[in-house]
């Protein structure tokens, strides 16, 4: 928090750091003062130097003093904590809205024009409201440089955070609520750009939207990257939470369907079913229930592009 590089990265930095520094200052003062007093007493009233103790049972006035002073100081800290926090819960009505989807174990960001990314791109000096949607379990969106954090709760409506990025740059974005196996890999970054650069990035749909890319293979890969497939499935044959995609097309795999084992060939039908109803056929050696349906998030056309890409992974 002391890195000058990230100071004032958002409109909340000042409020948070103020209360942080006040509290730390008071804390260090009391820690050092009390420790020093204690050490002095231990030295001075050591039984070698002070063989006869003086019996003192207490002092009402001292008790009052050290109740009232800490009370006032804590109320001061409480006040600044509240002042720094209060604006976080009220987003300006003209804020740019981005919907954030959190799932095991990646984030995806959807803009008002339907554009989807796995990295959060934002314009500088513009209020942003992130609508937080958790697809499976609790996650928590945490951008340390902006001093913001909000849990993403499945089923909770109108859950949001807002802030105004104030410095161009790239910042870390973590998941801060434990969400299972790959929790520590659930991070991405925030790229804050000048407003003009952001606007041209925003309207430039060639980067993601399928039909504007010539090759369906590249499109498929892009879609999978944005939606987060590679958090659980590799393309190099190594095993993560889900089976690797390497060499998967046309292979015979053993799956469990409704409690019975059977052999299936990986074809278009199988891939479509695996995306829309992932727990229908569970591949031997992997667990049920970890992947959720992508129905409504991926169109038939997206899936065709994905299949084209999977065909290339030999």
């Amino acid at each position, binding site marked *: 928090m002391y890195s000058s590089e990230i100071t004032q990265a958002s409109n909340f930095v000042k409020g948070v750091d103020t209360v942080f520094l006040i509290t730390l200052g008071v804390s260090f003062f009391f820690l050092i003062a009390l420790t020093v007093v204690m050490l002095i007493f231990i030295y001075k009233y050591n039984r070698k130097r002070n063989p006869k103790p003086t019996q003192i049972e207490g002092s009402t006035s001292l008790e009052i003093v050290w109740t009232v002073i800490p009370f006032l100081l804590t109320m001061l800290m409480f006040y*600044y904590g509240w002042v720094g*926090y209060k604006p976080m819960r009220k987003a300006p009505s003209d804020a740019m809205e981005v919907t954030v989807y959190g799932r095991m174990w990646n984030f995806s960001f959807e803009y008002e024009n339907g554009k989807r990314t796995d990295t959060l791109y934002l314009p500088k000096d513009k209020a942003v409201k992130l609508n937080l949607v958790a697809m499976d379990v*609790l996650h928590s969106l945490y951008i340390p440089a902006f001093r913001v954090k909000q849990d993403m709760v499945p089923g909770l409506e109108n859950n949001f955070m807002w802030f105004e990025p104030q410095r161009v740059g790239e910042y870390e974005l973590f998941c801060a609520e434990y969400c299972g196996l790959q929790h520590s890999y659930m991070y991405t970054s925030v790229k804050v750009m000048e407003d003009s650069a952001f606007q041209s990035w925003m309207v430039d749909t060639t980067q993601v939207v399928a039909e504007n890319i010539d090759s369906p293979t590249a499109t498929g890969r892009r879609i999978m990257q944005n939606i987060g497939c590679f958090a659980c499935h590799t393309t190099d044959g190594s095993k993560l939470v889900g089976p690797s995609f390497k060499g998967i097309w046309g292979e015979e795999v053993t799956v469990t369907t409704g409690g019975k084992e059977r052999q299936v060939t990986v074809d278009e039908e199988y891939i479509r079913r695996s995306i829309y109803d992932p727990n229908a056929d569970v591949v031997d050696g992997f667990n049920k229930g970890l992947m959720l349906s992508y129905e409504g998030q991926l169109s038939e056309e997206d899936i065709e592009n994905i299949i084209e890409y999977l065909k290339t992974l030999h």
Partner: protein
Amino acid sequence: MNSTSIENVANYLKYKGKYKGLLGWIFSTDHKRIGLLYLYSMATMFSVGVLLGLAMKLELLAPGKTIMDAQSYNATFTVHGVIMIFMVVVPGLPAVFGNFLLPIMIGAKDVAFPKLNLLSWWLYVAGVFLVLAALLFGPGTPDTGWTFYAPYSFKTGTNMLPAVFGAFVLGFSSILTGLNFLVTIHRLRCPGLKWSKLPLFVWTLYGTAWIQLLATPVVGITLVLIALERLFGVGIFDPAMGGDPILYQHLFWIYSHPAVYIMILPAMGAISEIIPTFSQKHIFGYKALIASTMAIAFVGYLVWGHHMFTAGMSGTAQYYFSLLTFIVAIPSAIKVFNWISTMYKGSINLQTPFYWAASFIFVFLIGGLSGLVLGALAANIYVHDTAFVVAHFHYIVFGGTGFAFFAAIHYWFPKIFGRMYDKAWANTGWIVFFIGFLTLYSPMFYLGMMGMPRRYYDYLQEFHGGNILSTIGSWVLVTGFIIIIVNLVRSARIGPKAEMNPWNGKTLEWTVPSPPPLENFDEIPELGENDGPYNY
């Protein structure tokens, strides 16, 4: 007192009843033997917990995989938390020192319900075995963290139910101990021992017992609801079935925050005994210390929401939970001021228990003051769920309760075992442990302020330095721990015989032989006008 006549009675360690050997212990209803049963079981579980913690720190020595994969790491921190919280610090000082000392300190022969007391230990052991069974058998070691947050705890394929049931059984052990202590303190005080003359350790046991009795059932209910949801699909917490995951967090913390005070209050009580004894001086502000104990016990019920500032509560709830969190800090501050004032103009005898007590004050201050950062809403949003929080609660729970436990064991060791430990080794163990502790946990404050989230198996390169230092600290701490344990175990068997009152303490346990006879007192003592726990 009547020490000469009761010296002929066999002491509680040697006493032979209906059963011999191990059976004579595990079926004994003697409060002192039960206290030691808890000590040995908790020391075993604590050592397991330390080894798991050591493994976690070793894994975090470098980014990427160091010694285990992510699934094992997640299981390791879950088991570390479950063991340390439910099996070590929650039973904590009351189970060991409360059992051993409460009846003696109030001049009674035993607790009010000795059989219920033994049942509590059996429930504790049953709970421990249930949880261990969950770890070793079945589909996989639980990997949810000790908080079992919904809905992840409903989705994971690992062995959740036996672990939850084990925690439920452990809860009953705690409730029954609390009930037993309450009745004992109300009914069995010896003649002349008015409430205004109760030792402060007894007062903290009293406050703790109320929390155990009133708060633990809530976690019991929560755990039953989890079982109903997992077994019968009743949608209470899982949004997929129409439940509310935030409701789970409320229910969990309504118990688990007061549980923090179950851990720390008796620790404060032990410190309130040790400091006057080694200062040879009346405790400063006896009534203020009692009032602060009861204030903590009461206000501690009302602050659970500060674990959930980022969870999505209403603004009003955030406001009050933050306010009350600051209020609950004040009684703790009052205690620190009174402890330090007790040293003023004392005649301080620098012995191992005093070193532990003084270092307790230091680490407890750091733990408490960092709690202020977390209580302030805006600052909490920033460091919640980061390594900062991990540092904070280890300073409180391990630094607070753990240091007080070591202070207490070095203080009452001659009374419990009738032998004295090697003081030079005891002091060496303390300083090594203390340095290790500071090196292990202090870097986590920094890492949290840099934004490193907690429960991270792997981390970015920028967090490497702090993690290296912290891992080195874990090695130093464990070295100190080994020195302490070897010294105590060895001294319990072959240490020199201890006197009845080696530290010149004034509470009643120092008026009976070391180790005490089976029923503590030959004749129930009677306190005169001028007798008192701190009248030097």
